[in-house]
């Protein structure tokens, strides 16, 4: 790279700057919008006001929906992390016919469009009275979130040398003990990262939640969709900002934890 950048380089940088602005501006637009004191959408906002945050925090509908989403996400996280980790162990350490095929099937929820899942699950749940219930939401959100856990945890497990588990067995630990003492601590960062991604997958999930929400129980994403369509007001911006900050914060944490897992020496390899 020459130290004197040619003209083409400056054009390149300008183009990139525009594209990055295009990426970032709409994303962060909700933040200044939420601080606007006026009723209608105006940018730049004339002054700063927290009234829309107050509106959000004092509106029982919003709070109910938020609480509901958090509850669902929390339960989903626990369930999907547990069964996702179990499945990852089986996929990475097990040997059985059709392992590759099963692995591909388990990742299917990532590929199928959510709209298909939404109406299919609605048809399945409605006659059973599961629509709008916590159980129903947790079931379907878990199905959608587990692939993230499986991806992250499987990758980490593959980096744990089987000889460590063999050493554990050789020294007298039973299989479960081995998992607890040897495998789990080494996979813990990845499991944590997987749990974070599962939480966010559930909390941000919009399409399926929209279709299986009931009148009494709806997720915050459903409420957002409804209000955007019928009740456009800057409260939405306030709620969105809170979620963006929380989401980005958690995602950044998950990424940092995942990188920590990658950098940690998986085994003291001989130099």
């Amino acid at each position, binding site marked *: 790279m020459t130290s004197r950048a040619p003209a083409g380089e400056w054009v*390149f*940088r300008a*183009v990139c700057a525009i*594209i*990055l602005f*295009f*990426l970032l501006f*709409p*994303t*962060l*637009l909700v933040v200044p*919008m939420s601080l606007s004191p006026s009723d*209608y*959408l105006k*940018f730049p906002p004339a002054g700063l006001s927290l009234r829309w945050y107050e509106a959000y925090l004092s509106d029982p509908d919003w709070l109910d929906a938020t609480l509901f989403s958090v509850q669902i996400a929390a339960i989903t996280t626990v369930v999907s992390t547990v*069964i996702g980790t*179990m*499945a990852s*162990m*089986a*996929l990475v*350490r*097990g*040997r*059985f016919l059709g392992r590759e095929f*099963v692995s591909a099937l*388990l990742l*299917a*929820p990532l*590929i*199928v*469009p*959510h*709209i*298909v899942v939404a*109406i*299919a*699950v609605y*048809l*399945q749940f409605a006659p059973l009275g599961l629509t709008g219930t916590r159980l129903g939401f947790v*079931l*379907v959100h*878990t*199905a959608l979130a587990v692939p993230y856990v499986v991806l992250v945890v499987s990758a980490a497990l593959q980096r744990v040398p089987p000889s460590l588990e*063999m050493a554990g*067995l050789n020294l007298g630990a039973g*299989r479960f003990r081995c998992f607890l003492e040897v495998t789990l601590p080494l996979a813990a960062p990845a499991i944590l990262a997987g749990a974070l991604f599962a939480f966010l997958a559930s909390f*941000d999930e*919009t*399409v399926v939640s929209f*279709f299986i929400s009931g009148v009494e129980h709806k997720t915050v*994403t459903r409420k957002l*969709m409804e209000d955007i369509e019928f009740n*456009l007001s800057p409260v*939405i911006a306030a709620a969105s900002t809170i*979620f*963006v900050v929380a*989401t*980005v914060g958690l995602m*950044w944490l998950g990424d940092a934890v995942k990188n920590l897992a990658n950098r940690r020496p998986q085994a003291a390899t001989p130099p």
Partner: protein
Amino acid sequence: MSATVAAPGLAPARTANAGATSHRGQMPTWLALALLAPLALLLAWVFFLPIVRLLLTSITEPTLNIANYRRLLSEPRYAEVIFRTLWIALLATIATLTLAYPVAVLMARPRSWVSNVAAVCVMVPLWTSVLIRSYAWIILLDRNGIINQWLSAAGLIQQPLTMLYTSGAVLMAMTHVLLPFMILPVFSALRSISPDLPRAARNLGAGPVRVFFSVTLPLSLPGVFAGCLIVFVMSLGFYITPALVGGPRTLMIATLIGQQATELLNWPFAGAIAFVLLALSLGITACFKRLLQLDKVVAHD
């Protein structure tokens, strides 16, 4: 004094335990299956079964027939929806590729504050929910929205432009939402190119433009194809953005499904459309995968 065995004799009669049960201390099969069971059962009941039932509904109501499919593919307004979706998906793919490539190149450069900033600019939108980003486009494109306010404040327009609820709006918003999904695979491919290769090319006399077209671009193609596949298939099944930013006159496949299911309660028809969407998504994925293998083979020549 010492035992000497020169060559093995005939195979002895095998005992009952013919066939090893475990390999190098790995998990026995029964345990692996037991660990998989909860997830498998969940997915079977919550995911696969409902989808199969939906597809069956599309061909069995009231009796075994394919009327729904015939209707979908023959009636012009539905054919129009499918065509529009494919067209927008194609345009979105091209648009995201065009915008993604320069950014990916920037990110793939040796670590500096610039590539870090670029990374943040890509990751933050990626982590922000599609819902919120689509909402931002409503704020921007609405008749009383921000862009109109600026344009009229600058005196460029007399009347507010109608941008929202058009195909153009959907395309713009989808491009924005999907851009990170194109950037990441291309970036990944670019980063995996050994820095020695462009250096070798320069050493052998190639100028920077030549280096790009004969070294960098071809080696980045796997990432380009992966990104195109991801973006195209995601565009096909997209619901949120077309639902919010598009309108009844810009129906796409996903929003059509939603409309048929919830407004018109025509589940069998919705199921048929869903099946077509699934078939399109999986089919294109399969085609692309084969193309990717072919590409690798060609690269070896």
